[in-house]
């Protein structure tokens, strides 16, 4: 089973700061999904990246997929308290087109 390593595990910053979180694997991803999970809720899909080198932007969030498709990053500009949550990366596992393997996530706290 392909393992997804996310870093850092915890991140606490002040409102207005920038941050980057990472998702890495020893194997190539076919595609990668990023989710945000707020306390007491289920994960919500933010983006899916498919092509090596791909960059996608979602307001203040920028997602990059590594050229070799073995790593991905999420950069947040001018973080806000509403960005607080658990950021998870996930990919299809075991040759399945439906079974997701998740990383353990980065728990982000943005303090006002």
């Amino acid at each position, binding site marked *: 089973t392909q393992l997804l390593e996310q870093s850092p595990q915890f991140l606490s910053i002040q409102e207005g700061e920038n941050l980057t979180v990472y998702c890495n694997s020893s194997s190539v991803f076919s*595609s990668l*999904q990023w989710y945000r999970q707020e306390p*007491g*809720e*289920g*994960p*919500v*899909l933010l983006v*899916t990246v498919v092509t090596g080198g791909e960059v996608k932007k979602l307001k203040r969030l920028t997602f990059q997929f590594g050229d070799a498709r073995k790593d991905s990053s999420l950069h947040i500009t001018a973080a806000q308290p509403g960005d607080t949550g658990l950021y*998870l990366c*996930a990919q*299809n*596992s075991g040759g*399945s*087109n*439906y*079974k*997701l*393997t*998740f*990383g*353990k*996530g980065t728990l982000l706290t943005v303090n006002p």
Partner: protein
Amino acid sequence: GAGVSQSPSNKVTEKGKDVELRCDPISGHTALYWYRQSLGQGLEFLIYFQGNSAPDKSGLPSDRFSAERTGGSVSTLTIQRTQQEDSAVYLCASGPSPQQKTQYFGPGTRLLVL
């Protein structure tokens, strides 16, 4: 429209008791998934239902765990003879079709086994 709903939202039980967790998927979604989220382990796939096909049960951790989906809609996850290590958040997700990989998650059921 209505999202995925799960009940109960919280469940406290005693070791050895059986529990049933319910998931109501988004109407019209043919795919339904169960995951378990525990501290230090992240989200683990448990089981997948797609239409009338045989479910993929490869993620169920033991034979104490079972799930069914009636009429292609509501699903129930049953844990028999609960153990303390079963304490976790159990998340259900649904998807519109096997080709559409997006999964829509419910809020989860928080299970605590004393």
